[in-house]
């Protein structure tokens, strides 16, 4: 069993309550006060001190089924707690672990700040703190879950854009939501990371999303792949290559000896 998030971006109203609730619960610092001019987004991306981030995408086309002539997509991004987590698999110290709730968790007392996890995340989620160099990201509110509470962001979301629960149940709910949207004419609705089949590079996401445009529009990779995904294959190839090289050496040695002889 694993817990996770289903983020339905079609009902996100961009209030950023998730960002604030997350920072408050986890006592994270601000990212500085910078006016970006990027729609209503002034925190820009996930990072060591921003574990929920709402993107604002202005599109000159309406969503199917609506009559607004324009659309303003809002989506709350978060750590995906991948079924195969690149950060976890890259971590040499064992600081990053899979919890009993199925989430991917950084143990701050173990992390040595090597940063291998950063290069291991295909989403650019995990980030090192500039002060102490340690890696930080969403904990899926491990401490709240221990007390039987849902994560702060899901609790604060007024429109249930962020839903928390058992991943399998969430996936079932999400598939029905996609069907409903399709019936209403929002044909472009689909699940991002909803299962391993649609996203083999991560084995599916425990925090997955309902989107209505290409992943790139939301600053998400279209085909994310955990670097360690091909580790076996790499080792096999490397092994084969080594054998090949050895065989070649042997052959050349033999040939050379034969030639000389």
């Amino acid at each position, binding site marked *: 069993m694993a817990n996770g998030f289903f983020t339905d971006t079609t*009902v996100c*109203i*961009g*209030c*950023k*309550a998730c*960002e*604030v609730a997350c*920072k*408050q619960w986890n006592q994270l*610092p*601000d*990212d*500085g*006060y*910078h*006016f*970006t*001019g990027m*729609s*209503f987004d*002034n*925190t820009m991306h996930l990072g060591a001190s921003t574990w929920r981030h709402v993107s604002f995408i*202005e599109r*000159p086309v309406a969503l199917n*089924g*609506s*009559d*607004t*002539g*324009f*659309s*303003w*997509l*809002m989506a709350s991004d978060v750590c995906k707690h991948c079924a195969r987590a690149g950060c976890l698999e890259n971590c040499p110290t064992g600081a990053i672990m899979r919890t009993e709730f199925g989430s991917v968790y950084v143990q701050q007392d173990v992390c040595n700040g090597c940063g291998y996890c950063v290069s291991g995340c295909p989403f650019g989620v995990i980030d090192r703190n500039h002060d102490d160099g340690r890696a930080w990201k969403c904990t899926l509110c491990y401490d709240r879950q221990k007390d039987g509470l849902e994560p702060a962001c899901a609790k604060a979301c*007024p*429109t*249930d854009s962020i839903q928390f629960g058992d991943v399998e149940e969430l996936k079932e709910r999400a598939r029905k939501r996609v069907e409903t949207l399709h019936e209403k004419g929002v044909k472009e609705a689909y699940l991002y990371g909803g299962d391993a089949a649609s996203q083999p590079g991560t084995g599916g996401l425990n925090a997955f999303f309902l989107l209505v445009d290409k992943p790139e529009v939301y600053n998400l990779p279209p085909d994310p792949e955990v670097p360690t995904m091909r580790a076996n294959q790499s080792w096999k190839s490397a092994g084969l290559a080594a054998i090949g090289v050895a065989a070649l050496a042997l052959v050349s040695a033999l040939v050379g000896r034969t030639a000389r002889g």
Partner: protein
Amino acid sequence: MAEAHPVGFQWVMEAKRRGATVIHVDPRFSRTSAMADLFVPLRAGTDIVFLGALISYVIENERYFRDYVVSYTNAPVILRDDYRDTEDLDGLFSGWQEEKGQYEGPTWRYESTEHKGEDSQQTPESHAERSAQMAGPKVKAHDTDFTLQHPRCVFQVLKRHFARYTPQMVEEACGISQEQFHKVAKHLCHNSGRERTTAFCYAVGWTQHSAGAQFIRAAAILQLLLGNIGRPGGGVMALRGHATIQGSTDIPTLFNLLPGYLPMPKAGTDKSLAEYLENYTARSGWWTEFPKYMISLLKAWFGDAATQNNDYCFDYLPKITGDHSHMTTVVNMADGDLDGYLVMGQNPVVGSPNAGLQRKGLRNLKWLVVRDFYLVETAEFWKDSPEHERGEVSAETIGTEVFFFPASTHVEKDGSFTQTQRVAQWHHEAIAPPADCRSELHFAYHLGKRLKELYANSSDPKDRPIQDLAWEYPVHDARDEPSAEAVLAEVNGYTVADRKPVDGYLKLKDDGSTACGCWIYSGIYAGGVNHAAKKNRATDHYGYGPEWGFAWPSNRHILYNRAAADPQGRPWSERKALVWWDEVKKEWTGYDTPDFMKTVPPDYRAAEDSQGTQTISGDDPFILHPDGKGWLFAPAGLQDGPMPTHYEPFESPVHNPLYGQQCNPVRLEYDRSDNQMAKPIADPRFPYVITTYRLTEHHTTGGMSRWLSWLAELQPGMFCEISPELAREKQLRNGDWAVVSTPRAEIETRVLVTERMRPIKLGRRTVHQIGMPYHWGNRGLVTGDSTNELLAFGADPNSTIQESKALIGDIRPGRRDHSKAITKEATNAPEEELRDLPIARHRPIGKHHVHAPSSKQGDQT
């Protein structure tokens, strides 16, 4: 609504999930528009054209709910033959008194009205008061035409009044295409009637126009025609509640009201209790109960000292002498006529129009008290302001003594919030306030205590009100925090003999045997139980949650819900059943507390000589109106007309396309050199429309958000929103600085170029709109120039609410010169630039225009 009320918006999303169509009408594409099925941008300030055209559409196409309209509204009532419409007088109604600048006389009344006492429209200071509504008309049945054909019946007058509000006019005035207009009209009509209802929601920005009250009236007329009032899923929802705005008018912070919407007594006309009660007690309808509420209030305030022999201490109440609204108070300050000012949880230097004039007012006080969480701009005006920045004033030259009291937050005190649907919800003290922070209750209670001590030994009769004030509330803990629940018990009311809580306002008496702090809340502490503190989730039919908090009055969730049943008392449809007459039990029942006398049957008819609440017939759902009907035409109570009429904002880029009368003739305008106005029409210096608003990330003037890093980083600076077309025209680039100017001031702001702002096409002409949030000031973690520097003093005459949603201005690239004046103060527009053309041009000086004595002009600028 998603922008300013994101938590309440969850219910719109829930409705959408269940199939509701969401239509958003707004000058700019906001977070609400992003969730809407249909977005309708319009030129700021033209709402009455749009709503009037919908009214006209509903009438012309016979899409109104005829049975409802005939039985429950005043549509059949015949008006006087000397009534003249704006169609006859080019934008004015009959009764216009040019020399006084106001409407007078009886022409708006029903033909058969019996009026009591003096003419309620004649009192010169009567704006924003409800006396006229209370003491309004009593209608006789024979002056009606239920076929709605009589040329002087309300229905026909309404039809004629809005006949020129056509889809073509909407296109020309609002910039909404006829196709879009028809889409909205069809959705509205399709979703109204017996089986379906439509709700209108507005955030309070709708009231911030010089005809704001009439905007709301227009929506109410439309909803009455469509049969959407008093029914589940219907209504006109004012989105208030940051955090208890509803509560702050129920138990008011307004100058002209006492708790429970009882009018503040006026000097001259309300000299004794008898006179006051005579002036405001209605002859018919629920306000016939008025004396019970007033005398119970006096008993709650003055306790044993209040007796029948001394008019229950009525003489102790201050009597108002005129307009004491916010803006008038500030100009009085600026003119040196006011000594002290208490500002509690407010930041007028950022939040109120013409910030320069606000500061000028503060500089001319002797003392100022500010209670807030932080040292907001209003508390620090004496050492940091744009006037300091350019060296015009310094702390040494300002004589105002400023006292700052740190305030508790809502989690540090007990109390209640009343939200937008009148549900009072209790909050408990979770943690003690830090250091010297205290609750408002603590401040007010101990201030009262100290005043009583100071005056204890006085024998001067003028000090008796303080000596006799009932001021005993239990206190607890080391802070001597008074009990909020004891205040709630007083608000609920009690029988004087045994101090037992009354069950509700039906138990209140006018003989001094009951006391009640606010009659509409009576029942909130029935049985000695704090009903506001109830938190049981809704299990009822519509999910109203009768066990969650307490909805005044009488835990009733839909007002006028008698209208949810037909005249015979049967639900209009099973699908929309709410309240109905139970033939077996002989009483009103349903899914909500009925808003009607429980055992009065639908076929009861009031007799000619009926008294009190017996004047309300069984088919009179609108029990607070003296005639029991919903008012399509308001025969009393409004300063600026019985029906909404489109007037341009007092600064507009265009001529009024409908009438010669350009602006609301009764608007409040402060004609002062420190409140410069643009030319009334199409001032070439200020070609663009400016509209102002809130963002989700900040709370009003930032007192609760700009000092908090997690919110400050989300919107870290002042910006304006403009269309790419305007950006090209003015060579403005996204993210760059720009200067926005009006006749009052100029401020600098970042620019957000976005397709969410669209040029408005009015025929061949294009009008650009500039969107401006107003949250920033010069203190706090994130700072910026304040939008309110740009706005003018000028207001709706009924509510004294400022016009801040539609004005004109200019924009240019770059930054302002910080050494030059942010505020402008010069002579007003020359005499030939009349503000009203061609009629009502000579508005009298003095009534609403408080002129600054010329000797003051040089002092501060």
